[in-house]
Protein backbone atom coordinates (compact mmCIF):
# COMPACT_ATOMS: atom_id res chain seq x y z
CA UNK A 1 0.00 0.00 0.00
CA UNK A 2 2.51 2.59 1.11
CA UNK A 3 5.27 3.26 -1.36
CA UNK A 4 8.44 2.04 0.31
CA UNK A 5 10.54 0.46 -2.39
CA UNK A 6 13.11 2.67 -4.07
CA UNK A 7 14.30 0.99 -7.28
CA UNK A 8 11.49 0.30 -9.75
CA UNK A 9 13.58 -2.13 -11.78
CA UNK A 10 14.12 -4.18 -8.64
CA UNK A 11 10.37 -4.24 -8.14
CA UNK A 12 9.68 -5.28 -11.70
CA UNK A 13 12.20 -8.07 -11.44
CA UNK A 14 10.71 -9.45 -8.26
CA UNK A 15 7.23 -9.17 -9.73
CA UNK A 16 8.36 -11.14 -12.77
CA UNK A 17 9.98 -13.71 -10.51
CA UNK A 18 6.81 -14.10 -8.49
CA UNK A 19 4.70 -14.51 -11.64
CA UNK A 20 7.07 -17.17 -12.93
CA UNK A 21 6.97 -18.87 -9.54
CA UNK A 22 3.18 -18.75 -9.49
CA UNK A 23 2.77 -20.24 -12.94
CA UNK A 24 5.31 -22.94 -12.09
CA UNK A 25 3.39 -23.70 -8.92
CA UNK A 26 0.20 -24.01 -10.93
CA UNK A 27 1.83 -26.31 -13.46
CA UNK A 28 2.88 -28.52 -10.55
CA UNK A 29 -0.80 -29.37 -10.16
CA UNK A 30 -0.45 -31.42 -13.35
CA UNK A 31 1.06 -34.09 -11.11
CA UNK A 32 -2.38 -34.45 -9.53
CA UNK A 33 -4.43 -33.69 -12.63
CA UNK A 34 -2.83 -36.21 -14.97
CA UNK A 35 -3.52 -39.31 -12.82
CA UNK A 36 -7.09 -38.19 -12.09
CA UNK A 37 -7.77 -37.52 -15.77
CA UNK A 38 -6.30 -40.89 -16.71
CA UNK A 39 -8.47 -42.64 -14.15
CA UNK A 40 -11.56 -41.05 -15.66
CA UNK A 41 -10.58 -41.89 -19.23
CA UNK A 42 -9.31 -45.45 -18.72
CA UNK A 43 -12.79 -47.07 -18.74
CA UNK A 44 -13.63 -45.46 -22.07
CA UNK A 45 -10.25 -46.40 -23.46
CA UNK A 46 -10.89 -49.94 -22.25
CA UNK A 47 -14.23 -50.00 -24.05
CA UNK A 48 -12.72 -49.03 -27.41
CA UNK A 49 -9.74 -51.28 -26.72
CA UNK A 50 -11.91 -54.32 -25.98
CA UNK A 51 -14.02 -53.62 -29.04
CA UNK A 52 -10.99 -54.23 -31.23
CA UNK A 53 -9.77 -57.49 -29.72
CA UNK A 54 -10.31 -61.06 -30.84
CA UNK A 55 -12.01 -63.35 -28.36
CA UNK A 56 -8.67 -64.99 -27.68
CA UNK A 57 -7.06 -61.70 -26.67
CA UNK A 58 -10.18 -60.66 -24.82
CA UNK A 59 -9.89 -63.52 -22.39
CA UNK A 60 -6.10 -63.63 -22.26
CA UNK A 61 -4.51 -63.83 -18.88
CA UNK A 62 -2.98 -61.48 -17.83
CA UNK A 63 -4.99 -58.97 -19.92
CA UNK A 64 -3.45 -57.73 -23.16
CA UNK A 65 -3.11 -53.97 -23.23
CA UNK A 66 -3.39 -53.25 -26.95
CA UNK A 67 -5.30 -55.27 -29.53
CA UNK A 68 -3.09 -57.18 -31.93
CA UNK A 69 -4.19 -57.51 -34.64
CA UNK A 70 -6.83 -54.78 -34.63
CA UNK A 71 -9.98 -56.83 -35.03
CA UNK A 72 -12.64 -54.72 -36.78
CA UNK A 73 -14.80 -57.76 -37.39
CA UNK A 74 -16.49 -57.15 -33.99
CA UNK A 75 -18.15 -54.06 -35.42
CA UNK A 76 -19.36 -55.91 -38.50
CA UNK A 77 -20.63 -58.97 -36.64
CA UNK A 78 -22.13 -56.93 -33.80
CA UNK A 79 -24.15 -54.63 -36.02
CA UNK A 80 -25.18 -57.58 -38.18
CA UNK A 81 -26.64 -59.58 -35.27
CA UNK A 82 -29.68 -57.32 -34.84
CA UNK A 83 -31.30 -54.81 -37.23
CA UNK A 84 -29.08 -52.01 -35.99
CA UNK A 85 -29.67 -49.85 -39.06
CA UNK A 86 -33.36 -49.68 -38.20
CA UNK A 87 -32.62 -49.11 -34.52
CA UNK A 88 -30.28 -46.25 -35.35
CA UNK A 89 -32.89 -44.62 -37.61
CA UNK A 90 -35.49 -45.01 -34.85
CA UNK A 91 -33.18 -43.37 -32.34
CA UNK A 92 -32.35 -40.52 -34.71
CA UNK A 93 -36.03 -39.93 -35.46
CA UNK A 94 -37.00 -39.99 -31.79
CA UNK A 95 -34.13 -37.74 -30.77
CA UNK A 96 -34.69 -35.25 -33.59
CA UNK A 97 -38.45 -34.97 -33.22
CA UNK A 98 -38.21 -34.54 -29.44
CA UNK A 99 -35.46 -31.95 -29.59
CA UNK A 100 -37.26 -29.88 -32.22
CA UNK A 101 -40.39 -29.81 -30.08
CA UNK A 102 -38.56 -28.97 -26.90
CA UNK A 103 -36.66 -26.05 -28.45
CA UNK A 104 -39.78 -24.56 -30.07
CA UNK A 105 -42.12 -24.90 -27.13
CA UNK A 106 -39.65 -23.99 -24.39
CA UNK A 107 -38.46 -20.91 -26.24
CA UNK A 108 -41.95 -19.48 -26.68
CA UNK A 109 -42.91 -20.22 -23.08
CA UNK A 110 -39.59 -18.80 -21.89
CA UNK A 111 -40.25 -15.73 -24.00
CA UNK A 112 -43.67 -15.32 -22.41
CA UNK A 113 -42.21 -15.54 -18.91
CA UNK A 114 -39.27 -13.26 -19.66
CA UNK A 115 -40.91 -10.52 -21.70
CA UNK A 116 -44.69 -10.25 -21.46
CA UNK A 117 -46.74 -8.96 -18.56
CA UNK A 118 -49.83 -10.83 -17.39
CA UNK A 119 -51.51 -11.46 -14.05
CA UNK A 120 -50.33 -14.55 -12.18
CA UNK A 121 -47.03 -14.75 -14.00
CA UNK A 122 -44.94 -15.03 -10.83
CA UNK A 123 -47.05 -17.82 -9.38
CA UNK A 124 -47.09 -19.77 -12.64
CA UNK A 125 -43.35 -19.46 -13.03
CA UNK A 126 -42.82 -20.70 -9.49
CA UNK A 127 -45.05 -23.69 -10.21
CA UNK A 128 -43.05 -24.35 -13.36
CA UNK A 129 -39.76 -24.24 -11.45
CA UNK A 130 -41.00 -26.42 -8.63
CA UNK A 131 -41.83 -29.22 -11.06
CA UNK A 132 -38.06 -29.46 -11.54
CA UNK A 133 -37.93 -31.02 -8.09
CA UNK A 134 -40.70 -33.51 -8.79
CA UNK A 135 -39.35 -37.06 -8.96
CA UNK A 136 -40.26 -38.22 -12.46
CA UNK A 137 -40.92 -41.71 -11.13
CA UNK A 138 -44.25 -40.55 -9.69
CA UNK A 139 -45.48 -39.73 -13.17
CA UNK A 140 -44.36 -43.01 -14.72
CA UNK A 141 -47.43 -45.14 -14.03
CA UNK A 142 -50.28 -42.66 -14.49
CA UNK A 143 -48.68 -41.40 -17.71
CA UNK A 144 -48.50 -44.95 -18.99
CA UNK A 145 -52.16 -45.51 -18.20
CA UNK A 146 -53.17 -42.27 -19.88
CA UNK A 147 -51.12 -42.98 -23.00
CA UNK A 148 -52.61 -46.44 -23.11
CA UNK A 149 -56.12 -44.96 -23.08
CA UNK A 150 -55.11 -42.75 -25.96
CA UNK A 151 -53.93 -45.84 -27.81
CA UNK A 152 -50.39 -44.48 -27.99
CA UNK A 153 -48.53 -47.43 -26.46
CA UNK A 154 -46.53 -49.09 -29.21
CA UNK A 155 -46.02 -45.76 -31.01
CA UNK A 156 -43.36 -43.08 -30.65
CA UNK A 157 -45.95 -40.51 -29.55
CA UNK A 158 -45.61 -40.87 -25.74
CA UNK A 159 -41.90 -40.17 -26.05
CA UNK A 160 -42.19 -37.27 -28.51
CA UNK A 161 -45.42 -35.36 -27.84
CA UNK A 162 -44.71 -34.19 -24.24
CA UNK A 163 -41.65 -32.37 -25.59
CA UNK A 164 -43.94 -30.08 -27.57
CA UNK A 165 -45.34 -28.71 -24.32
CA UNK A 166 -42.10 -27.37 -22.89
CA UNK A 167 -39.76 -28.73 -20.26
CA UNK A 168 -39.34 -26.95 -16.95
CA UNK A 169 -35.55 -26.78 -17.12
CA UNK A 170 -35.49 -25.63 -20.74
CA UNK A 171 -38.13 -22.97 -20.08
CA UNK A 172 -36.08 -21.76 -17.14
CA UNK A 173 -32.96 -21.68 -19.29
CA UNK A 174 -34.63 -19.69 -22.08
CA UNK A 175 -36.13 -17.24 -19.62
CA UNK A 176 -32.81 -16.65 -17.88
CA UNK A 177 -31.11 -16.14 -21.21
CA UNK A 178 -33.75 -13.73 -22.52
CA UNK A 179 -33.51 -11.61 -19.38
CA UNK A 180 -30.01 -10.81 -20.62
CA UNK A 181 -31.06 -9.89 -24.17
CA UNK A 182 -31.65 -6.12 -24.51
CA UNK A 183 -35.33 -5.21 -24.53
CA UNK A 184 -34.73 -2.41 -27.05
CA UNK A 185 -34.66 -5.05 -29.78
CA UNK A 186 -38.23 -6.22 -29.36
CA UNK A 187 -39.52 -2.81 -28.31
CA UNK A 188 -38.29 -1.34 -31.59
CA UNK A 189 -40.07 -4.12 -33.47
CA UNK A 190 -43.23 -3.52 -31.45
CA UNK A 191 -43.20 0.18 -32.33
CA UNK A 192 -42.98 -0.91 -35.97
CA UNK A 193 -46.20 -2.85 -35.42
CA UNK A 194 -44.93 -6.39 -34.96
CA UNK A 195 -47.06 -8.68 -32.77
CA UNK A 196 -45.71 -10.79 -29.93
CA UNK A 197 -45.43 -13.94 -31.99
CA UNK A 198 -43.63 -12.26 -34.84
CA UNK A 199 -41.23 -10.78 -32.31
CA UNK A 200 -40.62 -14.23 -30.85
CA UNK A 201 -39.94 -15.79 -34.21
CA UNK A 202 -38.07 -12.98 -35.96
CA UNK A 203 -36.30 -11.14 -33.15
CA UNK A 204 -36.02 -13.42 -30.15
CA UNK A 205 -35.16 -16.73 -31.80
CA UNK A 206 -32.28 -15.40 -33.94
CA UNK A 207 -30.85 -13.74 -30.83
CA UNK A 208 -31.25 -16.79 -28.61
CA UNK A 209 -28.96 -19.20 -30.47
CA UNK A 210 -26.78 -19.94 -27.41
CA UNK A 211 -29.87 -20.93 -25.42
CA UNK A 212 -31.27 -22.96 -28.32
CA UNK A 213 -27.93 -24.72 -28.70
CA UNK A 214 -27.73 -25.52 -24.99
CA UNK A 215 -31.30 -26.83 -24.74
CA UNK A 216 -30.84 -28.69 -28.01
CA UNK A 217 -27.66 -30.42 -26.93
CA UNK A 218 -28.99 -31.46 -23.54
CA UNK A 219 -32.10 -32.83 -25.25
CA UNK A 220 -30.17 -34.64 -27.98
CA UNK A 221 -28.02 -36.46 -25.45
CA UNK A 222 -30.92 -37.24 -23.09
CA UNK A 223 -33.01 -38.73 -25.86
CA UNK A 224 -30.11 -40.57 -27.43
CA UNK A 225 -29.41 -42.27 -24.10
CA UNK A 226 -33.03 -42.83 -23.06
CA UNK A 227 -33.77 -46.35 -21.91
CA UNK A 228 -36.74 -46.54 -19.54
CA UNK A 229 -39.20 -44.68 -21.78
CA UNK A 230 -38.49 -46.72 -24.93
CA UNK A 231 -38.52 -49.88 -22.81
CA UNK A 232 -42.04 -49.17 -21.60
CA UNK A 233 -43.64 -47.68 -24.69
CA UNK A 234 -42.00 -49.19 -27.74
CA UNK A 235 -42.20 -52.56 -29.37
CA UNK A 236 -38.59 -53.71 -29.14
CA UNK A 237 -38.61 -55.73 -32.35
CA UNK A 238 -39.63 -53.00 -34.78
CA UNK A 239 -39.29 -49.77 -32.81
CA UNK A 240 -36.16 -50.57 -30.83
CA UNK A 241 -33.73 -47.79 -30.06
CA UNK A 242 -30.01 -48.18 -29.55
CA UNK A 243 -30.07 -48.31 -25.75
CA UNK A 244 -32.75 -51.01 -25.71
CA UNK A 245 -31.02 -52.93 -28.50
CA UNK A 246 -27.75 -52.95 -26.56
CA UNK A 247 -29.52 -54.52 -23.62
CA UNK A 248 -31.23 -56.99 -25.95
CA UNK A 249 -27.92 -58.01 -27.48
CA UNK A 250 -26.33 -58.45 -24.05
CA UNK A 251 -29.23 -60.57 -22.86
CA UNK A 252 -29.24 -62.73 -25.96
CA UNK A 253 -25.55 -63.28 -26.57
CA UNK A 254 -24.20 -62.44 -23.15
CA UNK A 255 -20.65 -62.23 -22.01
CA UNK A 256 -19.27 -64.58 -24.66
CA UNK A 257 -19.38 -61.86 -27.27
CA UNK A 258 -17.66 -59.18 -25.23
CA UNK A 259 -15.83 -57.77 -28.25
CA UNK A 260 -19.05 -57.25 -30.17
CA UNK A 261 -20.80 -55.90 -27.10
CA UNK A 262 -18.05 -53.34 -26.59
CA UNK A 263 -18.12 -52.50 -30.30
CA UNK A 264 -21.84 -51.73 -30.07
CA UNK A 265 -21.35 -49.73 -26.87
CA UNK A 266 -18.62 -47.73 -28.59
CA UNK A 267 -20.94 -47.04 -31.51
CA UNK A 268 -23.53 -45.72 -29.06
CA UNK A 269 -20.95 -43.40 -27.51
CA UNK A 270 -19.28 -42.09 -30.68
CA UNK A 271 -22.11 -39.72 -31.77
CA UNK A 272 -22.12 -38.23 -28.26
CA UNK A 273 -18.37 -37.67 -28.44
CA UNK A 274 -18.66 -36.03 -31.87
CA UNK A 275 -21.47 -33.76 -30.68
CA UNK A 276 -19.46 -32.85 -27.63
CA UNK A 277 -16.35 -31.92 -29.59
CA UNK A 278 -18.27 -29.71 -31.99
CA UNK A 279 -20.46 -28.01 -29.42
CA UNK A 280 -18.27 -28.07 -26.35
CA UNK A 281 -18.67 -24.44 -25.34
CA UNK A 282 -22.47 -24.66 -25.39
CA UNK A 283 -22.44 -27.21 -22.58
CA UNK A 284 -20.71 -24.79 -20.26
CA UNK A 285 -22.67 -21.84 -21.59
CA UNK A 286 -25.96 -23.61 -21.00
CA UNK A 287 -25.18 -24.17 -17.38
CA UNK A 288 -23.77 -20.68 -16.97
CA UNK A 289 -27.00 -19.20 -18.42
CA UNK A 290 -29.10 -21.10 -15.92
CA UNK A 291 -27.81 -18.69 -13.32
CA UNK A 292 -24.86 -20.30 -11.57
CA UNK A 293 -22.10 -17.77 -11.88
CA UNK A 294 -23.50 -16.28 -15.03
CA UNK A 295 -23.27 -12.82 -13.61
Amino acid at each position, binding site marked *: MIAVSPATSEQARSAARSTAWRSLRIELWNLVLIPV*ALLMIVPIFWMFDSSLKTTLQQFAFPPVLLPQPVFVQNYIDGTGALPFGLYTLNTIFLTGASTLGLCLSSSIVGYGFARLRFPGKGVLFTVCLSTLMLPSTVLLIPSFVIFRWLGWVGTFLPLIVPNYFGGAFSIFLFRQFLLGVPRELDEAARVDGAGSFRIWWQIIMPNATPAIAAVGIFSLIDNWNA*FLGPLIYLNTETQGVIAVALNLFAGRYGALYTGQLMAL*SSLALIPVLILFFFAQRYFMQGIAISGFGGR
Partner: protein
Amino acid sequence: MSTKQTVARRRSRLLWKEYRDGYLCILPWIIGFIAFVAGPMIFSLVMVFTHWDILNPPSFIGFGNFATLFQDPLFWVTLYNTVFVTVISVPLYTLFALLLAVLADLPTRWQAVYRVAFFIPSQTPTVASALLWSWIYNPQYGIANAVLRFLHLPALNWLFDPNLAKPSLIIIGMWGVGATMVIFLAGLQGIPQEIYNAASVDGANLWHRFTAITLPLLSPVILFNIIIGIIGAFQSGFSIVYVWTSLGQGPDNSILLYVLYLYDNAFQYFKMGYASLLAWVLFLIVLLVTGVNFLVSKSWVYYEYGGAEK
Protein backbone atom coordinates in the same frame (compact mmCIF):
# COMPACT_ATOMS: atom_id res chain seq x y z
CA MET B 1 -61.62 15.21 -22.80
CA SER B 2 -62.26 12.83 -25.64
CA THR B 3 -58.56 12.48 -26.48
CA LYS B 4 -57.80 11.58 -22.88
CA GLN B 5 -60.42 8.87 -22.98
CA THR B 6 -59.16 7.44 -26.25
CA VAL B 7 -55.61 7.33 -24.93
CA ALA B 8 -56.76 5.50 -21.81
CA ARG B 9 -58.85 3.10 -23.85
CA ARG B 10 -56.00 2.46 -26.27
CA ARG B 11 -53.62 1.82 -23.41
CA SER B 12 -55.96 -0.63 -21.73
CA ARG B 13 -56.51 -2.37 -25.06
CA LEU B 14 -52.75 -2.71 -25.51
CA LEU B 15 -52.45 -4.10 -21.98
CA TRP B 16 -55.19 -6.63 -22.64
CA LYS B 17 -53.43 -7.63 -25.81
CA GLU B 18 -50.21 -8.17 -23.91
CA TYR B 19 -52.01 -10.26 -21.28
CA ARG B 20 -53.59 -12.35 -24.02
CA ASP B 21 -50.26 -12.83 -25.80
CA GLY B 22 -48.60 -13.73 -22.52
CA TYR B 23 -51.11 -16.45 -21.75
CA LEU B 24 -50.93 -17.70 -25.33
CA CYS B 25 -47.14 -17.93 -25.11
CA ILE B 26 -47.15 -19.99 -21.95
CA LEU B 27 -50.20 -21.99 -23.04
CA PRO B 28 -48.12 -24.98 -24.22
CA TRP B 29 -46.62 -25.28 -20.77
CA ILE B 30 -50.01 -24.88 -19.04
CA ILE B 31 -51.51 -27.64 -21.19
CA GLY B 32 -48.44 -29.81 -20.66
CA PHE B 33 -48.54 -29.19 -16.93
CA ILE B 34 -52.19 -30.23 -16.67
CA ALA B 35 -51.93 -33.16 -19.07
CA PHE B 36 -48.54 -34.58 -18.16
CA VAL B 37 -47.91 -33.47 -14.57
CA ALA B 38 -50.87 -32.36 -12.45
CA GLY B 39 -53.43 -34.65 -14.09
CA PRO B 40 -51.31 -37.79 -13.81
CA MET B 41 -50.38 -36.91 -10.21
CA ILE B 42 -54.02 -36.68 -9.13
CA PHE B 43 -54.85 -39.77 -11.14
CA SER B 44 -52.09 -41.78 -9.50
CA LEU B 45 -53.23 -40.62 -6.07
CA VAL B 46 -56.61 -42.23 -6.83
CA MET B 47 -54.88 -45.37 -8.12
CA VAL B 48 -53.16 -45.78 -4.75
CA PHE B 49 -56.49 -46.96 -3.33
CA THR B 50 -57.22 -49.49 -6.04
CA HIS B 51 -56.27 -52.93 -7.15
CA TRP B 52 -55.76 -52.78 -10.88
CA ASP B 53 -54.12 -55.14 -13.35
CA ILE B 54 -54.78 -52.66 -16.21
CA LEU B 55 -56.66 -55.27 -18.27
CA ASN B 56 -59.74 -55.48 -16.05
CA PRO B 57 -61.54 -52.53 -14.48
CA PRO B 58 -59.91 -51.29 -11.25
CA SER B 59 -61.47 -52.23 -7.94
CA PHE B 60 -61.45 -49.91 -4.96
CA ILE B 61 -59.73 -51.54 -1.99
CA GLY B 62 -59.34 -48.62 0.42
CA PHE B 63 -56.11 -48.90 2.34
CA GLY B 64 -55.46 -52.45 1.18
CA ASN B 65 -52.26 -51.52 -0.62
CA PHE B 66 -50.94 -49.86 2.54
CA ALA B 67 -51.37 -53.10 4.47
CA THR B 68 -49.52 -54.99 1.75
CA LEU B 69 -46.75 -52.40 1.75
CA PHE B 70 -45.84 -52.76 5.39
CA GLN B 71 -45.70 -56.52 5.15
CA ASP B 72 -43.82 -56.60 1.89
CA PRO B 73 -40.21 -57.62 2.64
CA LEU B 74 -39.00 -56.51 -0.79
CA PHE B 75 -40.34 -53.01 -0.17
CA TRP B 76 -38.12 -52.74 2.89
CA VAL B 77 -35.14 -54.33 1.13
CA THR B 78 -35.34 -52.00 -1.86
CA LEU B 79 -35.94 -48.99 0.38
CA TYR B 80 -32.89 -49.95 2.43
CA ASN B 81 -30.76 -50.40 -0.69
CA THR B 82 -31.87 -47.07 -2.06
CA VAL B 83 -31.34 -45.17 1.19
CA PHE B 84 -27.92 -46.85 1.51
CA VAL B 85 -26.89 -45.75 -1.97
CA THR B 86 -28.26 -42.25 -1.41
CA VAL B 87 -26.60 -41.71 1.95
CA ILE B 88 -23.21 -42.83 0.70
CA SER B 89 -23.32 -41.45 -2.80
CA VAL B 90 -24.67 -37.92 -2.41
CA PRO B 91 -21.90 -36.63 -0.07
CA LEU B 92 -19.30 -38.61 -1.97
CA TYR B 93 -20.36 -37.36 -5.40
CA THR B 94 -20.74 -33.78 -4.22
CA LEU B 95 -17.26 -33.75 -2.72
CA PHE B 96 -15.70 -35.47 -5.70
CA ALA B 97 -17.44 -33.20 -8.20
CA LEU B 98 -16.29 -30.15 -6.23
CA LEU B 99 -12.75 -31.48 -6.15
CA LEU B 100 -12.78 -32.09 -9.90
CA ALA B 101 -14.21 -28.62 -10.52
CA VAL B 102 -11.51 -26.96 -8.44
CA LEU B 103 -8.85 -28.96 -10.31
CA ALA B 104 -10.42 -28.18 -13.69
CA ASP B 105 -10.53 -24.50 -12.77
CA LEU B 106 -6.75 -24.26 -12.30
CA PRO B 107 -5.24 -22.34 -15.20
CA THR B 108 -2.85 -25.14 -16.16
CA ARG B 109 -1.58 -25.69 -19.67
CA TRP B 110 -3.95 -28.56 -20.49
CA GLN B 111 -7.00 -27.18 -18.69
CA ALA B 112 -9.30 -27.81 -21.67
CA VAL B 113 -8.17 -31.42 -21.97
CA TYR B 114 -8.78 -32.09 -18.28
CA ARG B 115 -12.27 -30.64 -18.48
CA VAL B 116 -13.15 -32.94 -21.35
CA ALA B 117 -11.66 -35.94 -19.53
CA PHE B 118 -13.67 -35.22 -16.37
CA PHE B 119 -16.89 -34.52 -18.22
CA ILE B 120 -17.06 -37.16 -20.95
CA PRO B 121 -17.76 -40.19 -18.71
CA SER B 122 -20.98 -38.56 -17.51
CA GLN B 123 -22.26 -38.42 -21.08
CA THR B 124 -21.70 -42.10 -21.84
CA PRO B 125 -25.03 -43.77 -22.71
CA THR B 126 -26.15 -45.48 -19.50
CA VAL B 127 -26.72 -48.89 -21.01
CA ALA B 128 -23.31 -48.75 -22.68
CA SER B 129 -21.67 -47.86 -19.40
CA ALA B 130 -23.58 -50.62 -17.60
CA LEU B 131 -22.19 -53.13 -20.09
CA LEU B 132 -18.73 -51.58 -19.99
CA TRP B 133 -18.54 -51.73 -16.20
CA SER B 134 -19.89 -55.22 -16.00
CA TRP B 135 -16.95 -56.14 -18.27
CA ILE B 136 -14.52 -54.12 -16.12
CA TYR B 137 -15.82 -55.88 -13.00
CA ASN B 138 -15.64 -59.33 -14.60
CA PRO B 139 -14.02 -61.49 -11.87
CA GLN B 140 -11.81 -63.49 -14.25
CA TYR B 141 -10.94 -61.21 -17.14
CA GLY B 142 -11.93 -57.76 -15.96
CA ILE B 143 -9.47 -54.91 -15.72
CA ALA B 144 -10.50 -54.13 -12.12
CA ASN B 145 -9.13 -57.42 -10.84
CA ALA B 146 -6.13 -57.16 -13.15
CA VAL B 147 -5.21 -53.94 -11.36
CA LEU B 148 -5.73 -55.55 -7.96
CA ARG B 149 -3.55 -58.51 -8.90
CA PHE B 150 -0.90 -56.16 -10.21
CA LEU B 151 -0.89 -54.46 -6.80
CA HIS B 152 -0.70 -57.90 -5.14
CA LEU B 153 -4.13 -57.43 -3.63
CA PRO B 154 -6.72 -60.21 -3.51
CA ALA B 155 -9.09 -60.29 -6.50
CA LEU B 156 -12.73 -59.47 -5.74
CA ASN B 157 -16.03 -60.86 -6.91
CA TRP B 158 -17.51 -57.38 -7.49
CA LEU B 159 -21.01 -57.73 -8.91
CA PHE B 160 -21.31 -61.32 -7.83
CA ASP B 161 -20.65 -60.49 -4.19
CA PRO B 162 -23.76 -59.22 -2.37
CA ASN B 163 -21.58 -57.03 -0.16
CA LEU B 164 -19.68 -55.45 -3.01
CA ALA B 165 -22.44 -54.96 -5.54
CA LYS B 166 -23.66 -51.69 -4.00
CA PRO B 167 -20.17 -50.16 -3.70
CA SER B 168 -19.54 -51.21 -7.32
CA LEU B 169 -22.65 -49.31 -8.32
CA ILE B 170 -21.57 -46.26 -6.35
CA ILE B 171 -18.16 -46.26 -8.09
CA ILE B 172 -19.85 -45.93 -11.49
CA GLY B 173 -21.78 -42.94 -10.25
CA MET B 174 -18.52 -41.37 -9.10
CA TRP B 175 -17.12 -41.89 -12.55
CA GLY B 176 -20.13 -40.02 -13.93
CA VAL B 177 -20.10 -36.88 -11.76
CA GLY B 178 -18.99 -34.74 -14.72
CA ALA B 179 -22.33 -32.98 -15.11
CA THR B 180 -22.32 -31.96 -11.44
CA MET B 181 -18.72 -30.84 -11.85
CA VAL B 182 -19.70 -28.50 -14.68
CA ILE B 183 -22.30 -26.82 -12.46
CA PHE B 184 -19.62 -26.29 -9.80
CA LEU B 185 -17.23 -25.02 -12.45
CA ALA B 186 -19.75 -22.42 -13.61
CA GLY B 187 -20.22 -21.43 -9.97
CA LEU B 188 -16.47 -21.11 -9.41
CA GLN B 189 -16.16 -18.86 -12.42
CA GLY B 190 -18.85 -16.61 -11.01
CA ILE B 191 -16.73 -15.75 -7.97
CA PRO B 192 -15.05 -12.38 -8.63
CA GLN B 193 -11.30 -12.70 -8.96
CA GLU B 194 -10.80 -9.48 -6.94
CA ILE B 195 -11.87 -11.23 -3.77
CA TYR B 196 -9.12 -13.81 -4.22
CA ASN B 197 -6.61 -11.10 -5.05
CA ALA B 198 -7.53 -9.15 -1.94
CA ALA B 199 -7.17 -12.26 0.18
CA SER B 200 -3.78 -13.02 -1.37
CA VAL B 201 -2.58 -9.54 -0.50
CA ASP B 202 -3.65 -10.24 3.06
CA GLY B 203 -1.47 -13.35 2.95
CA ALA B 204 -4.15 -16.04 2.74
CA ASN B 205 -2.83 -19.34 1.43
CA LEU B 206 -4.58 -21.73 -0.92
CA TRP B 207 -6.46 -23.59 1.79
CA HIS B 208 -7.56 -20.40 3.53
CA ARG B 209 -8.83 -18.96 0.30
CA PHE B 210 -10.74 -22.16 -0.40
CA THR B 211 -12.43 -22.37 2.99
CA ALA B 212 -12.99 -18.66 3.54
CA ILE B 213 -13.98 -17.59 0.03
CA THR B 214 -14.73 -20.46 -2.31
CA LEU B 215 -16.85 -22.59 0.00
CA PRO B 216 -19.13 -19.85 1.36
CA LEU B 217 -19.62 -18.20 -2.02
CA LEU B 218 -20.27 -21.55 -3.62
CA SER B 219 -22.66 -22.72 -0.91
CA PRO B 220 -25.87 -21.99 -2.90
CA VAL B 221 -24.51 -24.14 -5.73
CA ILE B 222 -23.53 -26.86 -3.26
CA LEU B 223 -27.06 -26.83 -1.86
CA PHE B 224 -28.51 -27.03 -5.37
CA ASN B 225 -26.31 -30.00 -6.24
CA ILE B 226 -27.13 -31.78 -2.99
CA ILE B 227 -30.88 -31.33 -3.46
CA ILE B 228 -30.85 -32.39 -7.11
CA GLY B 229 -28.43 -35.18 -6.17
CA ILE B 230 -30.76 -36.59 -3.52
CA ILE B 231 -33.80 -36.43 -5.79
CA GLY B 232 -31.73 -38.19 -8.45
CA ALA B 233 -30.22 -40.77 -6.10
CA PHE B 234 -33.61 -41.92 -4.81
CA GLN B 235 -34.61 -42.71 -8.38
CA SER B 236 -31.19 -43.67 -9.65
CA GLY B 237 -29.74 -46.79 -11.09
CA PHE B 238 -32.66 -48.03 -13.15
CA SER B 239 -30.84 -48.65 -16.41
CA ILE B 240 -27.65 -49.99 -14.87
CA VAL B 241 -29.33 -52.32 -12.42
CA TYR B 242 -31.85 -53.45 -15.02
CA VAL B 243 -29.03 -54.45 -17.35
CA TRP B 244 -26.92 -56.02 -14.60
CA THR B 245 -29.65 -58.07 -13.02
CA SER B 246 -30.79 -59.37 -16.39
CA LEU B 247 -27.20 -60.61 -16.79
CA GLY B 248 -27.46 -62.39 -13.45
CA GLN B 249 -25.36 -59.94 -11.49
CA GLY B 250 -26.17 -58.44 -8.11
CA PRO B 251 -27.11 -61.53 -6.05
CA ASP B 252 -29.58 -61.66 -3.14
CA ASN B 253 -31.39 -58.50 -4.28
CA SER B 254 -28.31 -56.60 -3.15
CA ILE B 255 -28.72 -53.94 -5.84
CA LEU B 256 -32.46 -54.19 -6.33
CA LEU B 257 -33.24 -50.49 -6.07
CA TYR B 258 -36.58 -48.87 -5.35
CA VAL B 259 -37.36 -47.72 -8.90
CA LEU B 260 -36.69 -51.20 -10.23
CA TYR B 261 -39.10 -52.72 -7.78
CA LEU B 262 -41.64 -50.08 -8.73
CA TYR B 263 -41.12 -50.87 -12.41
CA ASP B 264 -41.45 -54.60 -11.78
CA ASN B 265 -44.70 -54.12 -9.89
CA ALA B 266 -46.18 -51.92 -12.59
CA PHE B 267 -44.92 -53.48 -15.79
CA GLN B 268 -44.09 -57.07 -14.90
CA TYR B 269 -46.71 -57.97 -12.28
CA PHE B 270 -49.25 -55.35 -13.47
CA LYS B 271 -50.05 -54.20 -9.95
CA MET B 272 -50.77 -50.63 -10.99
CA GLY B 273 -52.37 -49.62 -7.68
CA TYR B 274 -49.58 -51.00 -5.53
CA ALA B 275 -46.89 -49.51 -7.80
CA SER B 276 -48.62 -46.13 -7.55
CA LEU B 277 -48.44 -46.37 -3.78
CA LEU B 278 -44.72 -47.15 -4.06
CA ALA B 279 -44.33 -44.06 -6.25
CA TRP B 280 -46.16 -41.87 -3.75
CA VAL B 281 -44.13 -43.18 -0.82
CA LEU B 282 -40.99 -42.30 -2.77
CA PHE B 283 -42.39 -38.87 -3.58
CA LEU B 284 -43.22 -38.13 0.05
CA ILE B 285 -39.79 -39.28 1.25
CA VAL B 286 -38.07 -37.07 -1.34
CA LEU B 287 -40.34 -34.15 -0.45
CA LEU B 288 -39.57 -34.56 3.25
CA VAL B 289 -35.82 -34.83 2.72
CA THR B 290 -35.81 -31.82 0.40
CA GLY B 291 -37.83 -29.80 2.92
CA VAL B 292 -35.44 -30.67 5.75
CA ASN B 293 -32.57 -29.78 3.45
CA PHE B 294 -33.94 -26.33 2.78
CA LEU B 295 -34.52 -25.76 6.50
CA VAL B 296 -31.04 -26.88 7.49
CA SER B 297 -29.51 -24.94 4.61
CA LYS B 298 -30.37 -21.62 6.30
CA SER B 299 -27.59 -22.31 8.76
CA TRP B 300 -24.86 -22.93 6.19
CA VAL B 301 -25.76 -21.40 2.86
CA TYR B 302 -24.42 -17.94 2.25
CA TYR B 303 -26.55 -15.77 -0.02
CA GLU B 304 -24.48 -12.59 -0.32
CA TYR B 305 -23.59 -13.49 -3.88
CA GLY B 306 -25.56 -15.89 -6.00
CA GLY B 307 -28.94 -16.53 -4.53
CA ALA B 308 -30.05 -12.92 -4.53
CA GLU B 309 -31.34 -13.00 -8.07
CA LYS B 310 -33.69 -15.92 -7.72
